[in-house]
């Protein structure tokens, strides 16, 4: 199922928007113009991820060294602070087994969406998630 989140201009880089559709709550992030959608429900106890702060990814090859990059691409759960990679939904502490579901998100032309009878303006770009 496709869901139109809103005009691109309303979700500027670094921001996020919570959408509810098809019984799901999904949070859509704009990372420098690319859009990513995650299940809003934290896989731990269900904390609302859209309320979580974002930060960069800190890694360390050796105690005392801090490599910090990808600023803004990690969301921390607002409750127990588990870190999730916004691009993949994978947790940092156990990326293989613990993740929040991620959904495809993309930008589509209003003109293309018009055919599907969403109320859109032709001249604008829209963020669309595939649920």
């Amino acid at each position, binding site marked *: 199922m496709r869901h139109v989140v809103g005009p691109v201009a309303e979700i500027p880089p670094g921001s996020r928007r919570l959408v509810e559709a098809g019984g799901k709550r999904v949070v859509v992030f704009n990372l420098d113009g690319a859009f990513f959608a995650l299940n809003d429900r934290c896989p*731990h106890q269900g904390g609302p991820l859209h309320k979580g702060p974002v930060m960069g990814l800190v890694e360390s090859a050796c105690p005392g060294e801090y490599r910090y990059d990808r600023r803004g691409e990690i969301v921390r759960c*607002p409750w*127990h*602070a588990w870190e999730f990679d916004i691009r993949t939904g994978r947790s940092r502490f156990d990326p293989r087994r613990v993740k929040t579901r991620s959904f495809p998100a993309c930008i589509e032309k209003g003109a293309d969406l018009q055919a599907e009878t969403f109320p859109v303006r032709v001249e604008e770009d829209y963020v669309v998630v595939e649920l």
Partner: protein
Amino acid sequence: MNVINPRLAPGRPPAATQGLVDVDIHPRPRSLHVFDPWLSAEMRHRLHSYGLRARHGFVKGPPYFKAQPLASRRDAWTPEGGTPASDPAFTAAQHLDHYGVDIGVLNPLQPSGQGDMNNPFSAAMAHAVNEWQLAEWVARDGRLRASVVVPYEDAEASAAEIRKRAGDSRFCQVLVMSRTSHPLGNPKYWPIFEAAEEAGLPVGVHAFGYSGWPMTNGGWPSFYIEEVSEHATSCQSLVNSLVIEGVFERFRRLKVVLIECGFGWLPSVAWRLDKLWPTLKDEIPHIRRAPSEQLREQLWVSTQPIEEPPRPEQLLDCMGWIGWDRILYASDYPHWDFDDPRTAIPAFIPEAHRAAIYGGNARRLYGF
């Protein structure tokens, strides 16, 4: 005992058939000025010019920086930007109504003057915090019960505050912090136990506070992750102290509730004391009951932060060793390590036990 009609709420755990009692909610003052009406001019001056003086070096904030601001859920700030759990209406909406909490126990933490370096100030603040709980919280929401906050480093003043509140059903327990300046079983604190026993109030021990001593018995650790871990060791030390000093032998009707202390460690501590007891009986002849028996009869624990062992049956083992009738649900609202009652108390726990944890045990203990 009141009859509790379980509320219907969107988030209420269906297994809470004996009511949903949350034994750990942390109301927070909007500003330090909320305490002014109940403070003398001298104490008001002290509060607003010297501030609270806990046994650590920073004027503001804790020495081990929290994982989240104000150690709170990020979604617990009020829509107006007010600090978490500073607004009874928002607290009710986000927590009590949302989960269908029938009774919530208030445990005010800092800023409250508990464990302050200055005893008279600590006593003045305890009185003010207790009046504030009644006026701002209990009077506005009938589901809430207050804790008697005490200046625990001054046991006589604490006992006086407890006696003042005895018989007032708006208060359900006496509250002390786990990190006291002496191990809690020390005779220095006995007037608190005596007054609590007399008033028929359990003593809730909430993890936290600053003892003034290094946070481990091998010196100061480096990280917050260690501090969190060390709350468990501090609580273990206070349980050792209560048992070995003979507090449970002297105060046979005393009930102690460990709040936010974790509980996974308790069976091992009890077994260790049982193992030690025969080889140290010559030193502590005042201990007549096996330590595990004392703890089984006079100690309760709360669930949050819920233990998360690798496999479900390990949690069941642990809870069974402690006693299914001794475990109380706690949320720790609005703190970051909050436990959602629906997801934190796992469904693999048999339903009757879950019902007891959610409400039955707390109702029996506190007489709700």
